[in-house]
Every structure is written in structure tokens, then in C-alpha cells.
């Protein structure tokens, strides 16, 4: 008997990554902190077309797996074809500013 394999948070459309610590995330649906490798029955796939549309709008996407920002359409396709999770959304961090001394 096969158990249904649950999707991981990192691959879910509700997932937002912490901008500094990649092992911390946020679930838009639950409204709370989650962790990328957690599994969840409510997880939904990121729609490829949606990612592409957002890429056209923003001009960039962030690959959570690779930890890199993509600006090039070909690059984007490469990461999509590898099944990587791409996003433009991050967990809002309201305290980083107080931990980042100015340098200008």
C-alpha cells in the first residue's frame, strides 16, 4: 500500500523564505513560521505559468534551492526544468534594519 507523499513546504506556493536564514520560512496559509523540509497536507504546487508571469512583472526570481537571484529568462527555465522552487516572496523581516549598522 502506498502512502500519499506529502509535499514539502519549500516546494509549496504558500511558502515564503526568511531573507537571511534559509532554514526558516513562513506559511501564508497558516500564518506562522514553518521549516522548508516540513511536509504538509495543505501544500499546493507552484504553478509554472504563475512563476513565469511574476518573472515578467518583477524582472527577477529567487531560487530557494540554489540561493540565487535569477535575472535571465534562460536561467529561469533551467531552474524550472530542474524542479527548483522559485519565488519573489520573502518573509517580512522587521528587525534586520536594527541589526544592520549604516555604511555610507
Amino acid at each position: 500500500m502506498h502512502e500519499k507523499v506529502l509535499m514539502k513546504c519549500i516546494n509549496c506556493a504558500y511558502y515564503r523564505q526568511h531573507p537571511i536564514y534559509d532554514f526558516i520560512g513562513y506559511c501564508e496559509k497558516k500564518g506562522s513560521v514553518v521549516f522548508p523540509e516540513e511536509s504538509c497536507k495543505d501544500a499546493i504546487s507552484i504553478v509554472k505559468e504563475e512563476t513565469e508571469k511574476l518573472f515578467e512583472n518583477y524582472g527577477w526570481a529567487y531560487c530557494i534551492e540554489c540561493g540565487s537571484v535569477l535575472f535571465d529568462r534562460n536561467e529561469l527555465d533551467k531552474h524550472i526544468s530542474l524542479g527548483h522552487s522559485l519565488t519573489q516572496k520573502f518573509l517580512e523581516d522587521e528587525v534586520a534594519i536594527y541589526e544592520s549598522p549604516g555604511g555610507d
Partner: protein
Amino acid sequence: MKSLNYLLGGPQGGGLETSSQVLSWAFAKSGYGVISDREYYSNIVGRHSYIHAKADSEELPKDLQYPVKLLGAMDAESVFTHFTDLDSGAYVIYNSDLNSTRLSQIPSVEPEVGEKILKILKKLNIEQDLGSLVNYLKDNGVNVVGLSYRDLLSELQKKTNIVAAQASRYISTIIIGASAALVGIDPEAVKYGLTRRFKSGPVLEHNLTFSEIVSEIVSSNFGSPLKLDPPRGNFGRLMIVSGNDIVAMGKVVGGLRMQTYYPITPAADESFTLEEHERLGEAGIGSLTVFQLEDELAAVNAAIGASLTGTRVAAATSGPGFDLMVEGLGWAGMNEAPVVITYYQRGGPSTGQPTRGGQSDLLSSVFASHGEYPRMVLASGDHEEAFWDAIDALNYAEVYQIPVIHLVDKFLANTIRSVAFPDLSKAYINRGKIVQEPGKDYKRFSFESPVSPRAFLGKTLVWYTGDEHNEEGHISEEPENRIKIMNKRMEKLELIEQEVPEERRVSIYGDESPDVVLYGWGFVKGAALGAIKMLKEEGVKAMYVHVRTFIPFPKNTVKNIYSKYKDVMIDVEHNYLGQAAVLASAFANVEIKKHILKYTGRPIYSNELKNAVMRILKGSEKEVLEYGA
């Protein structure tokens, strides 16, 4: 253990400040002296930053030292960057989830830093992943406290609802809880630190609990191997302050009424601190005004304008901003307008290393001018001096009606230390020669004495101009008048020479009949005092000549010491040229030939200074220091 050298590293914006601040408060609350220096990249969230610190059971430390006994790493980069800073038997707190992270995968590592680390890893035969490095450390006498930061947070999340927008606060607490356990800090002191930082609400409650959980895990596995001796110094009432903070405090005590600035690193924090204490009533009556302008040209001119109305005023800036103020300072010098410039030195030229330190603007502060005018240049060596210098600068400016430049280096500005509460009964305000009721014969620039009778705008009609002027202040370029008014102004320098005693200009520390004499200024002081103690342990008697004012220069003391010890006199500075030695040559006619210099943007550490002194004693003429990531 008498003292603990430690280092906390992490991505900028990731909670490092919180960890360091809470630990500093906890140490101080427990009766220990602390010093911590913050090293960071220019305003880029995610770039590697670290705090190098020391806690001491016997004194309020002023020097920083390597190697460290404790490394608290918030990320993999901190372990890769600082494993060479570890002492034997040191403890490393790190995130064991990151064991498979390879150095080359960390995007924030600067290429040159990456190459340097890679070279060391290759030499030691260590693979590029964090797990291999950690294993190497374990095999070589380092104690590794590997914690799964994810699991710790995940467990906490099951009990509470972590405040997502402040998630990094919880990472700070992992470092705090684990460090506190290893060092055996009283949990009540940690609680005090956390409460002071997080004030109230769920973030505080969560982190109080979380700190206890982490401490419990670490102490049950490792005990408190880094426990400091019970505090022996009876320090009395302490303040935990940065150099920026204490200059602001000095200015408030010194009666500052207005501060002007344009934001620039590392000066702006001082103005921000003052802004927190700006209390103005409806009629503009209140504590003090802090005025941010569009640039430093405007900042210095606004300060001068305020000064003409009788306001006690200062401006704060660093190198690039100071350059924009130079024309204004000439104007102030010629028009006898008292104004203080607090000049924070960073690593230049140009934008240079805006978040790093240096002492390379000394010559600029002494010589920058169009034409000639009298000025004073003070330089602070530690927080205590910075407090009193800030007050003195305001007094000197008004007593002599001149621009006074107060030099502070970035190291001092950004270093947070425990400092004894100053004896405020020693503070005084001298506003100089003020004419309250100027009669009709009043002459603002009277030839009668070098310092003119000062009436404020609004009291009487006073003429000010950017051209040379006569006694009344009207434009005059007539040669005889020019000689008279130039002589009058420049004679202030002779007056200052007569009135500022030698002991205000220079401090002498260490052995009275030394084997070696260190000559320095500014933040060199802490390292020099630390090195003197270490040299003593090696049987070397050392003296430190600490210059506190460059105008007026302590020429008698420097000449006198040079005449006795010229062969063993070493100039120690954070610059390339040895600028204070250049001034010793110009003002005291002595040529200090040996140098220990550091211009990496990082401070001189007492241990590296001691080693460099030993090499000089063995025949080296010049040592260039480079320690520190």
C-alpha cells in the same frame, strides 16, 4: 579564568547585535568589565559581520585580543572565517544543520577571503564542507557545540507561535543561551539582558524561555567550562556605551545646544543618540536641537550661524564630510566663530572602507585649510577621554573663539565598553569672553587682545564677512590692517601654548625607566596598555606616550622622552605614513625611526602589538600588522 576573549559571527542583519548586546549587559550585570568591537561590511544585509569581545573579572578592559576561547557562529561563513582565531581548548557554537555547506556555496564570501580560507583548508588537508572543518577542529583540541538550529526552533514552534517577522531574534537567543551556559553567566543576568533588549511582549517571553531551553541543553552536555573567576573589580555604577554614545553624553553635559550633521559612517550614530534626547517646547525652548542638513557644507555653515547667535554648537562628520567643511572652518577661524567638529576617522581615501577604521586623517585635521587660522585638535584614546574631550572641545572653542577639531577613530566610535559613571562634579562650562551689553563703541574684532569680545547676533549690530575685515568687521584688504588682524588671530596659538598645560596634551603610562617606548594616540591606547602588561611578563619594561592634543602639541614631553630613548622609541598608529610621527618631526623636531603600523581597517590587538614590539627589539625597523578578518 581571569578574562574571556570571544567572537560572535553572523550575517549582517541576522541578529548579531542583539546577541552581543545581551551578553554584554549580562556580563556587566554580573560584575564583569566588557569591551566589544563590531566589524562589518558597508550596509549590506547578509554580508559577514562579527563582534570581537572580551569580558574581564578584574578590570574594565580597553584592549582586544586574539586568540578567542569562544566562537558563536550564526552561519557557516563565521566558522570558515574565524576558525583560525581559536585558542586551544576553545569552544565553537555552530549550526550542525549546515555540515554539508561548502565554502564555495556561500555567496556572501568575498572572493579574496574565500581564496585565503581555501588555501588554509588545502594546507591543512581539510575538505571544503563545514562538517569536515568541524571534524578537523574536534581532532585538534577544539570543543564543538553543534546544535541543530532548525530543530531547536521547530521544538519552540510547537510550544509557542514564533513571531515570524522577528525570527532572527530567536537565532540571536541560541547564541546567547549557549554562550551563557558555557561561560556560566547567572541566568538572572541573562534575563536582565534579554528584557532590556526585547522590552516586553511575546518576543521577550519566547526568548526568555528559549534561552533557558538552549542553556539547559548546552550545560547538561558541556557544563560551564569557560566560567570566569568571580568578579574582583569593584567598578561601582557602570554604563555600557559606544564611543558615539559617550561623545553625545559629553556634549550634553558640556552644554551643547545645537548639533548639525549630514549622515555619514561612523559619525551619524552620535547625532542619532542626541536626537533621542531632543526635547523642544513650543517656543523652541528645550534641551538641544539636532539639525540634519542636505550636506556637510550646509551642516558646518548652519553650525557657524548658530554660533554667531551665541549657541553652543558642534557638528559631527567623518573624512569625506570634513573635506566639505574646510571652507566653512576657514570662515569660522577668520570670524572667530566658536565651533566644534567631531571628526570620526574611517578608512579612506574617498569612500575607502566606510565601515572600517583608521587614523589616517590626522594630517588632514591639522593642516586642512585655505589660508591660515588658529585651531585646536584633540584626539581621544578611550571612552573616558572621549567624554571629557567632548566637554573640553566646547569650552576651548568658546574660550579661544576658534574651530576645535575633536578626533575620534571608528574603532572607538563603534566599540561598546563598560565604563565607570563619570564624576560630573568635575565638569564645567566656560563660555569665554562674552559681552552681554555691547555699547556703541563695541568692536567685534577689537585689536586689544587675540581673543575678541564676543557679542551675539541680536544683541547689537555685528558685521561678518567672508573677506578680510577690520576691527568692526567691515571688509578691509589694506596691508597694515591685514597684518594687524592676522597677527591678532594667529596669536591665539601662542595663548593656547601658554594656557594648555603639558599634562592635558599628553599622558604617560607604564615604566618610568623603560626598555622600550611606544608613541601613539587614539585607539592605540588600549592595545598599548595591554601590550605593556604582556611585555612585562616577558621581562620587557615598556612606556606608552599617549598624545591627546596635536594642536597644541606636547613638544616638551616628546622631546624630553626622545632625547633619552630615541633608539627604542616606536611610533604605533593605524595608518601608512606614521602621521603622528610626522607631526612629532614638524612640531618637536624629533625623528622617530621605528614604526608599528596597521592600515587594514581593523584595530591593533594587544597580542599582535606585543609580538611586533619584540621583533623591533630584535632589530626590525618597521612592522606592518595585518591580523583580523
